[in-house]
């Protein structure tokens, strides 16, 4: 049993001064009100007025505790008596979120919200839609030359265009063989140019296959394509070959109408086939030549029905969107970088090694900076096809970092008296994240990595590849599910523990209760902001999935690009989130001052406690459980 008498306490942690020592509180007085000043943001004015002078406790009682002192400092000094830290989320003593006044917090929040709105508006009003799809109908050229002539390129239009046929009835009449037909498509359409601002280009293939009663598509039919891609940078020079490959694609076509004579000539509905993907658009003109060689003996291109047309859809990022995106990244990089350096400087200025939570926040900041750095600027000048893959990797790193951060953030606030503050404690949660990300990385390497050498490669083209890709994605999906279960469980635990602590609040003195409640409110607020960010991401993701073609809303005269707003808005949101986390979790100035004053305390006699205060977050392995102390405190107060 302790009472106030047993405390040798004062503001400087020196035990010689009077403080409350020797004062036994009367039954009507609560002892701890003496030691626990109201939260700092409630006392700002007064503390300033009383700076330097002999601080008095605002209630007027004879407690010489300087009100400006952080409650947490007191806690550090009296760790054996009032260890508030281990069971409270904001035991990270003196972080800005803890010490900042509510008014300033609200102002900061509003500013961040304004930036958020701005990020949405940049995407919605300035940027065009992120990508454009352009259709091409491949022209049917006739290869009149000899077979051996490899370098001949077939242009669908323009001055040197090939001998075209309109349809295959004409070919039939002219006795042209299937092997002599070349499907040619020029990207882009006439009078237009491709540009490095398009960043990437992917092409999708679609067959128009007519239903014929006696020439139907066989089950599991494969199409073998002999494809060649060439480029040139002006309209007159020769074409240069970029890639040449034999590719197989599985036809999955179905007929929605009945297979009767009456429906002959109508088209199958065929799935889109992945065809080509290039990670940089460094040239102005591209030319695709596709052949469908027939070999009856080897069963190549047999039983694929009567092909009427080959249609291609090329997708590229819009130049306008790229520009807005680059501008945004260029603006965000220094902002995050500066706050990160500022944050880490403050951490290192404290005379203790950083805790896990602080480290993980730094890691989050680093991964955010990594994704922010606008290295894409180089793609305008250089033909770097790996940029797409690199972007994927950066994005993957950031999201796995963010997911790990949430886990550790919740875990560090769990307040269950277990030893944490080590990454190894979280292997169960971080493991699936890393594994899932790794699976996606492998998958991405299999698809986009191989595409660096063969742009026509697609993992989905073969059965084995499809199964493998599906396996990767399913494993990643399971990991994601596991993760969310873990996270939900952790959040539940955190909230349960907090409400458990809350039970003891009414028994406390007003000042102390206010302080606790303030801290709990702020923690919950941050938790809610996190949830809100995650929810916004999910909601906007779903919206962008649902609204398919009408990707723009009319707002008076302005066209609002929903998809672009989604991308810039979400990207801005995560940046602001990381910014806010780093800012709020940086050690505050006030604590800074306290640190100096507590230096006395350390030099005085409580040097041993100094090492303890970092551990306040989670790691008080004290014999008396803090709740016990509270219980006793409450009991004592009632006496």
């Amino acid at each position: 049993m302790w009472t106030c008498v047993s405390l040798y306490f004062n503001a400087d942690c020196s035990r010689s001064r009077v403080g409350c020592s020797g004062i036994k509180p009367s039954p009507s007085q609560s002892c701890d009100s003496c030691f626990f000043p109201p939260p700092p943001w409630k006392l700002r004015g007064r503390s300033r007025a009383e700076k330097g002078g002999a601080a008095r406790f605002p209630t007027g009682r004879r407690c010489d505790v300087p009100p400006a002192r952080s409650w947490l400092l007191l806690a550090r000094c009296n760790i054996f008596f009032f260890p508030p830290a281990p069971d409270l989320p904001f035991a990270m003593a003196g972080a800005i979120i803890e010490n900042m006044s509510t008014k300033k917090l609200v102002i900061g929040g509003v500013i961040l919200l304004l930036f958020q709105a701005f990020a949405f508006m940049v995407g919605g009003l300035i940027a065009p839609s992120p990508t454009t799809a352009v259709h091409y109908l491949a022209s049917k050229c006739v290869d009149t030359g000899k077979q051996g002539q490899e370098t001949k390129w077939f242009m669908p239009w323009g001055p040197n265009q090939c001998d075209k046929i309109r349809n295959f009835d004409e070919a039939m009449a002219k006795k042209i063989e299937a092997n002599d037909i070349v499907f040619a498509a020029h990207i882009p359409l006439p009078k237009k140019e491709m540009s490095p601002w398009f960043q990437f280009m992917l092409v999708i293939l679609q067959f128009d296959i007519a239903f014929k009663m006696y020439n139907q598509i066989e089950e599991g039919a494969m199409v073998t394509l002999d494809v060649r891609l060439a480029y040139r940078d002006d309209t007159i020079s020769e074409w240069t070959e970029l890639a040449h490959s034999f590719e197989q694609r599985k036809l999955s076509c179905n007929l929605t109408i009945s297979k009767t004579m009456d429906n002959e000539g109508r088209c199958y509905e065929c799935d889109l086939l992945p065809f080509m993907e290039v990670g940089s658009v460094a040239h102005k003109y591209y030319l695709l030549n596709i052949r469908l060689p027939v070999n009856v003996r080897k069963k190549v291109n047999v039983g694929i029905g009567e092909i009427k047309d080959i249609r291609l859809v090329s997708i590229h990022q819009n130049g306008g969107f790229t520009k807005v995106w680059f501008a945004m990244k260029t603006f965000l990089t220094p902002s995050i970088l500066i706050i990160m350096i500022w944050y880490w400087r403050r951490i290192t200025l404290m005379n203790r090694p950083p805790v896990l939570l602080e480290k993980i926040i730094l890691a989050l900041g680093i991964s955010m900076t990594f994704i922010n750095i606008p290295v894409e600027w180089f793609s305008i000048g250089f033909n770097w096809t790996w940029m797409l893959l690199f972007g994927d990797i950066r994005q993957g790193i950031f999201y796995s970092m963010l997911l790990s951060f949430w886990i550790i953030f919740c875990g560090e606030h769990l307040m269950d008296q277990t030893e944490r503050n080590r990454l190894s404690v979280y292997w169960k949660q971080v493991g699936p994240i890393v594994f899932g990300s790794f699976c996606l990385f492998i998958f991405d390497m299999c698809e986009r990595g191989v595409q660096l050498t063969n742009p026509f490669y697609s993992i989905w083209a073969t059965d084995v590849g499809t199964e493998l890709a599906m396996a990767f994605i399913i494993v990643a999906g399971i990991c994601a599910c596991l993760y969310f279960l873990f996270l939900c469980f952790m959040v539940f635990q955190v909230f349960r523990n907090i409400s458990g602590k809350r039970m003891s609040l009414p028994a406390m003195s007003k000042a102390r209760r206010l302080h606790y409640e303030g801290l709990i409110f702020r923690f919950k607020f941050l938790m809610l902001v996190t949830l809100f960010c995650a929810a916004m991401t999910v909601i906007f993701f779903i919206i962008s999935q649902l609204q398919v073609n009408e990707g723009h809303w009319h707002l008076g005269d302005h066209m609002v690009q929903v998809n672009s707003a989604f991308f810039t808005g979400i990207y801005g949101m995560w940046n602001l989130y990381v910014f806010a986390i780093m800012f709020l979790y940086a050690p505050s100035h006030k604590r800074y001052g306290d640190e100096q004053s507590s230096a006395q305390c350390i030099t005085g006699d409580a040097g041993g406690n100094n090492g303890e205060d970092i551990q306040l977050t989670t790691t008080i392995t004290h014999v008396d459980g803090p709740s016990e102390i509270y219980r006793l405190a409450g009991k004592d107060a009632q006496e």
Partner: protein
Amino acid sequence: MAQQRSTFPSGGRDAVTRRIMDNSPARRRRSGAARHLLLSVAFLACSSQLLVVNANSWWSLALTPIQRPEMYIIGAQPSCSQLSGLSQGQRKLCQLYQDHISYIGEGARMGIKECQYQFRQRRWNCSTVDNSSVFGRVIQIGSREAAFTYSISAAGVVNAISRACREGELSTCGCSRSARPRDLPRDWLWGGCGDNVHYGYRFAREFVDAREREKNYPRGSTEHARTLMNIQNNEAGRQAAYNLANVACKCHGVSGSCSLKTCWLQLADFRRVGEFLKEKYDSAAAMRIGRKGKLELVDKRFNAPTSEDLVYIDTSPDYCLRNDTTGSLGTQGRMCNKTSEGMDGCELMCCGRGYDQFKTYKHERCHCKFHWCCYVKCKRCTSLVDQFVCK
């Protein structure tokens, strides 16, 4: 007159033969056109005076250059002022968008062909006459059939323009916010070029409706009612073509996820548009001009038509018998199906006048071997079939 009688059923016979041997569409069409040409000379000689000059329509763009000497003389790009059938506004659009005109013609042709397919088994079989009125007098009646004709040809224009757009044949296509091709490269770089089905829809609205909009009939008059009806039906056709276009999407985000997704519209098979509009034809709403100068339902108990529905203001004429006043061609000489209970059955098709029966040989290819293109090895199978022709 005997010559004329043989003229009109030709369309019908055409349709029936198409069903029987649908193997060489190109050749058949060509022979059909030739027949049309020959017979049309006779037709024009006899009945050109019966037709009102006013009935000229942009549908005439559907006629092949052989049928339109003025197109043939000038070459591939006809001068707009020489094209008959265009109204003042349409002529202006023609001058602005010269390259569109041949595709509008293709659209009209597509619409007419589809109309003839959909109505191959009806008494009115969407047969065309070979002058610039295209469908003859019968379209001057604001009937269901006229409604269908207007809508299907408008849909055809949407389809053809969108298709031409996709093939890169039109200079203004897609980048629709800038009408001038001069700005095109910059727009293309900034935001790509918009959706071509949307462009097709917008252009068709400008072009097809131009004719109706420039007329200035007194409110509430019959002509005004007809104008409103045409506008409504044109819109219904365009919307059918636009709405039936299906959306295709491709996910291309990180690891092929859907975090990045691009969608585009794909034109529907025009047969589907035809079927859809045929359903709308069956449920078309009878309207009359109201006191406010707007169309209103004749029978108020029905639901008001939406912009996707067809409307008509006159009852259909009797298509059983030939009538030069209404423009009905009659069903004499049409093929019919003896066993069918439907409209193509001999009983209904011949309006109870009875039918003639005769036997013909039907040639079919059978036991074929194919490649995906240009290689077919078949046997020729022949069978004897009965055919029935209305008296």
